């Protein structure tokens, strides 16, 4: 039993990271209807910025704050410069643009920092909390705490601030939002900035567990897609729940289903994506839109 609980805890730790990147995906999807394939690479690039700051001698938390600020500005800039020109273009065009962005950011990181792996400092203390035969590392607790805090802040922003209300209005009906005086272009840029910031958090959380290298987020992105699909692409809460479920499912499948083991567990998100799309395309928390005319 303790072994099982142990696996679940490990799964939640991994899931929280998928959840944070899924959250970034969902944020942009909500605003623009764009699935941003470059989200993971942007997170990776942000993580390199954090690494660079730490390497330059800055204390970790200061480096983090700086990284989040740069990521926010970078996200807004990308919206203005790269996404704005194709706004309103067919979905395929926009998907290709984000795939192009993926390749570009990946190559840029390799060019600047090389493809050699780098050690990324773990902001949380080593050691673990032990209770009833289950040990939870401070690192896992830290990851869960950070993701919960990000979720809480986003909730406050969207539900309890005027700017958050404006952002939701733009996400629902941009034409009407413009008519009540909301600067829609600026709001979309804000959404991209916010998503890039949340993505940066995800990168910084994942880097100490893996190693920092330009392809670090590739796998995480797949899990985040599974999480967003499972939770519903239009639901931030669903993204987090989806991330946790995907993390736990993957860990348990790897531990208990003999044929899967640790080699095949990367197939789990694929199975989840396929299953959700077949059975409940809007996701667990997604809204199947019902309206009276």
């Amino acid at each position, binding site marked *: 039993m303790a072994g099982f609980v142990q696996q679940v805890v490990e799964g939640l730790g991994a899931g929280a990271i998928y959840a944070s990147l899924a959250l970034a995906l969902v944020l942009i999807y909500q605003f623009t209807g764009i699935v941003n394939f470059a989200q993971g690479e942007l997170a990776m690039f942000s993580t390199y910025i954090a690494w660079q700051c730490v390497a330059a001698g800055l204390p970790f938390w200061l480096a983090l704050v700086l990284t989040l600020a740069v990521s926010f500005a970078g996200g807004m800039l990308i919206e203005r410069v790269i996404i704005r020109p194709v706004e309103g273009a067919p979905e395929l065009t926009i998907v290709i643009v984000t795939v192009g962005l993926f390749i570009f950011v990946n190559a840029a990181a390799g060019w600047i920092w090389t493809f050699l792996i780098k050690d990324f400092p773990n902001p949380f203390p080593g050691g673990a909390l032990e209770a009833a035969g289950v040990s939870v590392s401070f690192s896992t607790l830290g990851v869960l705490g950070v993701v919960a805090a990000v979720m809480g802040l986003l909730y406050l922003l969207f539900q309890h601030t005027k700017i958050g*209300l404006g952002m939701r*209005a733009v996400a*629902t009906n941009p034409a009407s939002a*413009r*008519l009540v*005086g*909301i600067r829609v272009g600026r709001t979309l840029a804000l959404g991209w900035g916010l998503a890039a910031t949340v993505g940066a958090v995800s990168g910084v959380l994942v880097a100490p567990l893996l190693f920092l290298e330009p392809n670090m987020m590739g796998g995480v992105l797949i899990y985040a897609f599974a999480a967003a699909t499972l939770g519903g692409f239009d639901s931030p809460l669903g993204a987090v729940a989806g991330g946790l479920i995907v993390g736990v499912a993957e860990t348990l499948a790897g531990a208990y289903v003999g044929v899967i083991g640790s080699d095949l567990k990367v197939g789990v998100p694929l199975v989840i994506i396929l299953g959700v799309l077949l059975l409940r395309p809007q996701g667990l928390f997604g809204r199947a*839109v019902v309206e*009276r005319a």
Partner: protein
Amino acid sequence: MSDLVVADLVAGYGDARVLHGVSFTVREGEVCAILGPNGAGKTTLLRALSGVVRVRGTVTLGGTTLAGRSPDTIARHGVAHVPEGRGTFMPLTVEENLRLGAYVRRGGAEVEEDLGRIYTYFPVLKTRLKQAAGSLSGGEQQMLALGRALMLRPRLLLLDEPSLGLAPLVTRELFRIVQAINAEERTTVVVVEQNAHLALGIAQQAHVLETGRIVLSGTAAEIRADEQVAQSYLGYRV
């Protein structure tokens, strides 16, 4: 004075021109009805006034130029447009929809006060504050759209076919409220309407638009008395 002055207004979509030089003036505090058949350019005219479509020509409100500005800037100058299809923020609650109407205003206390005022105009909305706006009936959504527009404390209110899809009783109630608002708050109103009877009932001035040009202008009484209009839009001979 914040009269609405429109002169030589040209507008359209891409290469297709819809309005070919429209000119009229609405005095502050008056209601102006725009009548005309389908495809005459009535909706485009409102869209041109609120900046949704590009225009050439002159549009000024109280001396401030509106032509050529973006919809969000025009809204900030006090123009509230209730668009065709009502522009409801479907998944948001009724209260959030109303608060969005006051998005560009400062002064929390005044906004709260205005919310109260909207509830006295539309008591039904007060009973549905926390409900998703998309779940309202058509008539309720039209009231919500009007309430949202009023939350801006507009100097100019643009109404596009408020009667569309509504039961006659609901429509009459809606026009009664528009008239009350116009009387109490001196809001200038431009209303585009298929139901000429109702529109002329609350308007001082009216213009008949046909294929992008104003073919007839006058006071509401003059327009109602015009035989041509009577035949085309009122459905009877005088």
